[in-house]
C-alpha cells in the first residue's frame, strides 16, 4: 500500500482511502484519519504525521491537510469568531455589555450538549473580544482596550463596554497563529 507515498523533502503524501498503518493499543488514529477493521486509513489528502506521546508511548497517526480543512470546531479548540449574539448563550446577563455584532472574539468550544449547537465560552481571562469597532466610528478603526471591561476608540475617543480578552499586543501574533491552525 506504499504506492502513493512519494518522498518529497521527507514528507509523506497521503490521499483519502490510503491505508496508513495497523491500529492497536500503541498506534491510534488521529485527525485526518479513520479506523476500520484494525487499520488506519487516511480520509484527507495531505501529509502524514506520526507523533509519539513521550509518557504513554502511544503513536498518533494523523494526516495534515495543507488546505484549511472543512472541519467544524472540536471541543477544546480556541476559535476566532465573528460575533453573532444569537449563536452564543442567550441567557447571559446583559450580553450587550460584553459583545456586539461585528466584534471578533476569542472563545473556547464547549462540549456539545443536548441542544446540539456549538456553545462557545469566554469564561477565561484570555478569552473575549479581540477587536471591535465603536458605534459610529468608520470601518477599519478598531478600539483599544482600556480595561478588562472597556474599550476605547482611538479616533472618536468613545468608550464602550466589552468583555476584553487579556492579550498583551505582543502575543497577539502568536495567538492568531494558533487559530490559523485550529480553525
Amino acid at each position, binding site marked *: 500500500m506504499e504506492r502513493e507515498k512519494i518522498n518529497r523533502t521527507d*514528507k509523506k503524501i497521503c490521499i483519502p*482511502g490510503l491505508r496508513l498503518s495497523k491500529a492497536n493499543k500503541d498506534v491510534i488514529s488521529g485527525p485526518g484519519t479513520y479506523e476500520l477493521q484494525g487499520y488506519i486509513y487516511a480520509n484527507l489528502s495531505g501529509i502524514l504525521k506520526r507523533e509519539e506521546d513521550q509518557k504513554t508511548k502511544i503513536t498518533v497517526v494523523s494526516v495534515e491537510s495543507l488546505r484549511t480543512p*472543512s472541519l*467544524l470546531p472540536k471541543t477544546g479548540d480556541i476559535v476566532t469568531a465573528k460575533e453573532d449574539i444569537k449563536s452564543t448563550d442567550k441567557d447571559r446577563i446583559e450580553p450587550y455589555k460584553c459583545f456586539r455584532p461585528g466584534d471578533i472574539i476569542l472563545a473556547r468550544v464547549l462540549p456539545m450538549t443536548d441542544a446540539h449547537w456549538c456553545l462557545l465560552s469566554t469564561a477565561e481571562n484570555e478569552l473575549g473580544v479581540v477587536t471591535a469597532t465603536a458605534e459610529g466610528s468608520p470601518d477599519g478603526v478598531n478600539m*483599544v482596550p482600556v480595561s478588562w471591561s472597556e474599550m476605547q476608540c482611538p479616533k472618536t475617543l468613545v468608550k464602550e463596554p466589552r468583555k476584553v480578552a487579556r492579550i498583551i*499586543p505582543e502575543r497577539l501574533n502568536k495567538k492568531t497563529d494558533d487559530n490559523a491552525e485550529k480553525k
Partner: protein
Amino acid sequence: MPIDYRRFNGPEDSVSYKQYTKNFLKSYEELCNELIDENEHRKDGRALDEARTMYARTNMISQAKGSSYVELKKTKVVCSVFDPREIPNKNEFSPLGQIYCEVKFAPFSCPRKRRALVPDAEEKDLSLSLKKALEPAVCRYAFPNYQIDVFVYILEHDGACLAGAINAAGLALANAAVPMYDTITACSIAVIEDKLYVDPTEEEEYVANMTPAKEGINHGIITVAMLSTLEQVAGFTQLGSMDGTCVINATEILQKECQNIVPIIHQILVKDVIHNIDLSEKLEKEAKLREAALNENMEEWKKLLSAD
C-alpha cells in the same frame, strides 16, 4: 410550462433546424450499424472494451473551496464544492452531515436539443444518483448538522455523464479537504444488441435506450461507482432490459474499469498535495514579509496603549 420571467425566452414554437436535415430520423438498424465497423471498431476508433482516456485536474474554480474538471474526450464536466453550511430550513439535529448535489447540463451541452435552464427530470435524477454514490464515500459524521454543496456542471455531453460527474465530484471533494473514506471512481457501459460498449458516447447511449428491432435483445446502460481501497460498490444504476448474466458480466467489466481509473485519480490528488506544499512554502515566505508590516502596526498600537 410556466414562463420563466427571470431569463430571456425565445419564441415558443421554435424548433431545432436539425429536424429538417436529411439525417434526422434514422432507423434503429441504420444507427446500430453505424456504431461499429466490421472489425468491431467504434466510430472513434476504439475497441468495444476500450474506455476513453480521462483527463482531469483540480483547482479549476478559484472561488470554490475545492473544484475539478474531468474530460472524457468530448464529455466535459466541471465540479465545485463549497464549505459546509448549516442545513437550510431544518431544526432537528442530524448527527450525520448532508450532501447536497446538483447536476446541471449547460444549455448548449447536448447535440440533440437546447437544454432548458430550469432543472429537468434527467438532471434531478442524475443529482440523486450522484448523491447516493457520494454518501458512502464521505465521512458524514465529521460535519453533523451541516451540509456540503456539490455542484456539477456538464459543459458537453458525449456519454457517461453520471460517471464523469462522480469522478469529478470525488476529486473536488478531496481537493476541498472534505474527509472521505476512500477515493471514488465510476464508469459506464452501454449494451446494444447484446454487445457491451465500455464508456459509451452520447450516440451509443441513445441507441442503447432505443427499442431494438428484435424482441428480447439485451440493451441498456449500467453505471457503477466504486470505492477502490475498500472494494465496495458505492453506486449502481441500471436501465434498459438485460438478463441477469448480462448485468453481472457488465458489472464485472465496470469493476475493473473503475479500478483502471484509480491511478489517474491518485496521481492528480498527489499532484494536488505537492502543489499545496509548494504554495504553502511560498505563502510562508510572503507572510514573513507581511509580518514586518504588521509589526509596525503593533508598535503603533502599543504606543496608544501605553499612552492611555
